[in-house]
């Protein structure tokens, strides 16, 4: 029997702890495939966050560091400054990156730190039990927004990709989704480009990935993907906001 398809070698054989229908598994695999296909697995150091993907260090088959809540970009900065020739990435959720760690992500972009960030936005705090995130949509119910999020009470949902795209040091910024195979392919291309942006020394690269949380949203996996398409994509439009190659060619 010949092998026609294999799981990426950039992931270990450990079983994911993620809930059924959660798309972290797909995103892990895309990140792993990109690292493997770029041939940098042995030269990669990943930084895991606090939140649902806190155990990411058990799943990626490369050197990993676990950071405290929100500080992954600072930890990655320390690693990259010591090892400028290695590939360094952070994998962070929206509670981690868009709330407690906003200063760190803004400044890692501001410095043009040559690292890659995979930002998983599921509009809720998953690990801690479904509380409101800065990315929770208006009217969306969470355990700490039981009447639905109101803009007057706690502001509009934070658009991280757009915010970071205003910063000069952010060389690559793209928002993608993984709700169907076509979009999964697009997401992989964006993640690949974010890593290439680092390998070519352009500066900071981030891919915001819209992700589902059936458990936190109280929906079946299928309903959750539908909800993502109907509610998240209109507020968080997909597309590339910064691309070092495009900008370079635009100049000419």
């Amino acid at each position: 029997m010949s092998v026609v398809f294999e799981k990426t070698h950039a992931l270990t054989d450990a079983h994911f702890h993620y809930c059924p229908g959660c798309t972290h598994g797909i995103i892990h695999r895309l990140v792993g495939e990109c690292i493997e296909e770029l041939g940098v697995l042995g030269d990669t150091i990943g930084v895991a966050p606090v939140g649902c993907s806190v155990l990411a260090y058990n799943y990626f088959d490369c050197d990993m560091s676990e950071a405290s809540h929100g500080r992954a970009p600072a930890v990655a900065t320390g690693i990259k400054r010591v090892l400028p020739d290695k590939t360094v990435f952070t994998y962070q959720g929206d509670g981690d990156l868009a709330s407690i760690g906003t200063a760190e992500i803004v400044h890692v972009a501001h410095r043009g730190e040559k690292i890659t960030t995979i930002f998983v936005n599921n509009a809720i705090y998953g690990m801690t039990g479904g509380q409101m995130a800065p990315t929770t949509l208006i009217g969306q119910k969470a355990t700490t927004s039981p009447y639905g999020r109101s803009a007057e009470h706690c502001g509009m949902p934070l658009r991280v990709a757009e915010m970071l795209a205003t910063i000069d040091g952010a060389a690559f910024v793209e928002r993608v989704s993984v709700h169907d195979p076509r979009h999964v392919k697009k997401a992989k291309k964006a993640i690949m480009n974010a890593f290439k942006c680092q390998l070519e020394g352009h500066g900071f690269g981030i891919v915001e990935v819209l992700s589902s949380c059936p458990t936190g949203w109280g929906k079946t996996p299928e309903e959750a993907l539908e909800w993502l398409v109907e509610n998240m994509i209109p507020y968080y439009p997909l597309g590339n906001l910064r691309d070092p190659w495009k900008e370079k060619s635009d100049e000419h």
Partner: protein
Amino acid sequence: MSKVLMKGNEAVGAAAIKAGCRFFFGYPITPQNELPEYMSRELPKVNGTFLQAESEVAAINMVYGAAGAGARVMTSSSSPGIALKQEGISYIAGAELPCVIVNMMRGGPGLGGIQPTQADYFQATRGGGNGDYRTFTFAPASIQEAVDLLIEAFDIADQYRIPALVLGDGMIGQMMEPVEFNEPKQRPLPKKDWITTGTGGKRKPNIVNSLYLDPDELEEHNMRLDKKHKEIEANEIRYELYNMESPEIVLVAYGTTSRIVKNAIAILKEEGIEAGLIRPITLWPYPYGVFRELPKSVKALLTVEMSLGQMLDDVKIANEGRLPVHFYGRAGGVIPVPKEIVTKVKAIMGGEQP
């Protein structure tokens, strides 16, 4: 090597570079700014990296990343800034990473002031962060000692994989003294085979982490840290004894305060009162043992601090109820003068109760 006249903060920076520190992440705060300024000037000359972080919180996490990647790395701050770093220090202790942290203490709580105090003793020795951990703590009393201890702090951090704190104060940071940079004594240091530098496809991945979700595993980790702490307590306690042949009273003081106490002891001697000094050089581990071997002549202990009695707790623990323990302290950045200490000693000799 000849002596040079240097400001404390700059001398500490020079010592760090001498010790092989090539990475410094920090954030400005008075009264330690000359240290990051020195590093920003001097580190690039030795192919090192100085980076001014966006906050103390980011700075200590950059230290965490750099230490995990195998670098000799340092950060420095002053009291409110060190308070912000406590989260990171707890993670560094939990992940068993070596690094050096300098605190040039100023008055608190909160923003407090910018004059020297010793009010971060609890924070340094009891741990300002969460969990069962310790930070190794040196307390230099002169710029020469700050330089010597800082160089050694890097080795201790590497040997035990523990954050090592050098606890000075605004006085140590701001004053100038002649200083000599001696060749550091070499300790045999363990190989850093745990660092995250990329597997190169040649070994299993290394993970730098402080998370143990299984309570049995976390307890085992806590026990391992505890064993390491006991090893440090057995091997690394440092103190100075001064005028301890047959004193009637023993004063206990560290850092800047110990120098003022020495002047008070000289005045007391002229007036016919023999007073000795125990000067802890390591605040954790604390030299408890030395209090069990005091001469029979000692009638009382007097703790002198630039705080309202933080080391006093350790002196009481060390004394184990044998002698009366008195206290004299100034706070808020007020530096005690020898005359005040002499007056206090005379009052104790005259029968004042603690």
